[in-house]
Each structure stands twice: as C-alpha cells, then as structure tokens.
C-alpha cells in the first residue's frame, strides 16, 4: 500500500511539474492573449492541484493533509474564476479570441 501511495504521489507531482514547465513555455510561445491565458490557467489549476494532491498522498492522513485539502478546494474554485474574469475583461476590452492574420506566425 505504501509503495502504491509513493508511486501515485510521484506520478502526480511529476505530471504537475510537466504541466508547470509546458505552461511556462506556453506563456512565452503562444500567439495571442487568450491562448496565453489558457497556458497560464492550466498551470494555475492543473499543475497546482496535481502538486497538492501528490503532497497529500505523501503526507498520509493527518492535519497537514486536511489543510492541503482546503488549499486544494480554494485553488479549484479561485484559479478558474481568475482566468474567467481575465478573459471576460479582455473580451469586453476588444481582444479577439481568434488570432488576427497579423498575429499568426
């Protein structure tokens, strides 16, 4: 059981780190605001949640796990909301969701 938990946590943390790196690359490489926002929000929600879940598996069933669980719930709600607010504001300020010909590479 312990080995299984250890491997599961390594898998979670590894995937989280991978998402963090791809998100960081995406923020720099993506062509316009919305695609960049997508990269950032994947880092925000997917990566952070996977890392936290991996840490919860590492820690076992105790008080830190409960605290991590609260942070996880907070992240699950707050980061999609932040991404939503950003994209909505950008849209109302006139940013185009599809890349204009000038922006395409």
């Amino acid at each position: 059981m312990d080995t299984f938990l250890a491997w599961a946590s390594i898998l979670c943390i590894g995937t989280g780190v991978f998402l963090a790196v791809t998100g960081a690359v995406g923020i720099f490489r993506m062509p316009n605001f919305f695609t960049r926002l997508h990269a950032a929000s994947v880092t925000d929600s997917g990566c952070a949640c996977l890392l936290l879940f991996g840490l919860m598996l590492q820690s076992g069933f105790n008080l830190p796990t409960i605290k991590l669980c609260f942070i996880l719930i907070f992240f699950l709600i707050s980061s999609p909301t932040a991404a939503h607010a950003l994209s909505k504001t950008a849209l109302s300020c006139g940013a185009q969701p599809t890349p204009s010909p000038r922006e395409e590479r």
Partner: protein
Amino acid sequence: MELIIDITLLTFLGITALAINRIDKLFCVIMLSGIYSLLCASLFVTMDAVDVAFTEAAVGTGIATVLLLSTIGATDTQQRSAPRRPLFALLVVCATGAILIYGTMDMPAFGDPDAPIHQHVAPRYLQESQQEIGSDNIVTSILSSYRGFDTLGETVVIFTAGLSVVGLIGFRGMQKFGDRQRAAGITQDDMGKHLVLRIVIKMFIPLILLFALYVQFHGDFGPGGGFQAGVIFASGFIFYTLMFGLDAAMRVVSPRTLSYIAALGVLIYGGVGVATLLMGGNFLDYNVLRSNPLQGQHLGIFLIELGVGTTVFSIMVLIFFAFSSRKGLRQ
C-alpha cells in the same frame, strides 16, 4: 538542496529588482513588486522564519499591491521619464552601498552561534519562554510579552500612518461622491456583469474573515497574530469594495466608525498596560492580570493581539477607502 533553492530565489529576486527599474508601465511595476515580496516570503520560509514570511506574504504581496493599484487609479499609469541622467545620485548610491558592504565585513558570519545577538537575551527566550509565558509559539511570546513595548510602538506607528494618510488625502467631497459617480455614468454595473466573480467572491468573503479570526486567535500556537489577522480581515473588506463599490462598502462600515475602531485598538493595548500598572506590576507585565502568572500572560497576549488586529484592520481599510474615493474625484 536548500542552497539550490536559495540561489534560485535570490536570482529571481535580482531579476525582478532589475525589471522594476527598467519598466516604465506602473501597472507592471506594481505586479513585479508583488512578486518581489512573494520571493522574499519564500526566502524567509527557507530560513524557518514562518511568522515573518506570513506577514510579508499578507502585507507585501496582498494588501500593498491592492493599495498601490488603487493609487494608480488616481494617478497616471506611465512613469514620467527623468529630465536628465542623475549621475550624482548614482554616485551617492554606489558610495553608500560600498560603505554598507564594507561595514558588514566586521559582522559575525550568518548563523554563527557565537554572534553577540545569540548570546544576549536569545537563550532565555528560547529556553525559558515556555515556563515564563506558556505560549507554544516563541515568536508570539517575544513579540507580545517580552517586547510588548516595542509592539505597542509599532501599533501606534500604524495608527499614526493611517491618520496621516487620511489627513493628507482625506474624504473631501465624499458625501457627493455617489452623485458625482452617477453623473459621470460610472455605475457598479461594470463590475456587476461579472456574475461568476460576484458569486465566487460572495462565497469567499466569509471564509477569508473566518481564516483571519483563526490567524488572530491561533497566534499562540502557530504562525500568525494580530498584524497578519488584521491585514487578512481587511482584505476581505477590500474584496467586497472592489466587487460591490465604495458606497456599498461604506454602508457596511463608515470611515468615521473605522477611525473610532482604530483608536479603540490602540486604547485596548495601552489600557492593558495601564491596568497592569494599577494592579501593581510593571507596564505590560501581564503576570499580575490573574492570580496564576501563566494565565495572566495568556490573557494579556490575547487582549493586546486583539488591539493590534483591530487597529491594523481598520487602518488598512481606511487607507484603501481614502485612495479609492480619490479615484472617483478625479473622474
């Protein structure tokens, strides 16, 4: 491992500082200064100074960023370029920096156990605070009991700072602020369109306030205390103001009430000191508050942390109100 983390964080810190210097857009500068504070907080965590890190994260990253952003509303978003290259200023800064670095040569090495600061009162704090104060968190016992007088000074400083900001910026034209806003066609509907944001913030505000209370009353056992709790409680109010507008927030608690609450916090703190004097102890010597010295310490720390929390909370909200009302006036 810790060395790698330290080097990475310090490199990021340097890059952020350089970027803050280079960038003209004030919005980016504010965001970068928030990142700078967060990096500092991470460095404090690697040094095991969680209380300081907590304060830095709450004050530097949270409330300072919001206050600066609300200031931007009243000023320009672009930095004006300097009229000439300030070579003399550069010279002064370099000379002062060189002197300061030269001064550190004489200081004991970082973490040296024989350093004077670790010989003076620190052993007593570390070894005997459990018996003398009975608080699990040594930082809290130092901050509120051994060094209670210093903390009183800090609280008064925050109180004075808040009073000066309100005195300088003020709430002039505040009564007509709502009318002016309506006349200018600025309504809260701009924010009201964000339905998702509204609902999520409504969900989070009680949790933020609850967390602030936890930080306030859990300061004896873990990192936290009046300063952090006050800032977090204030951030809940600022959240509300950002979403539902200044008028709605001022209906919840008016600036006048806030200034009374701020004074009340300092009064509680000073009152505990006077009470200990009257009960035959020294100023802020909590042992005399109860028959059992440990219980007296517990009660004293609880009361003064409450005073600190109320003052910090109301001053933060007051400063935010002052800046935000300024924004309305300009439009």
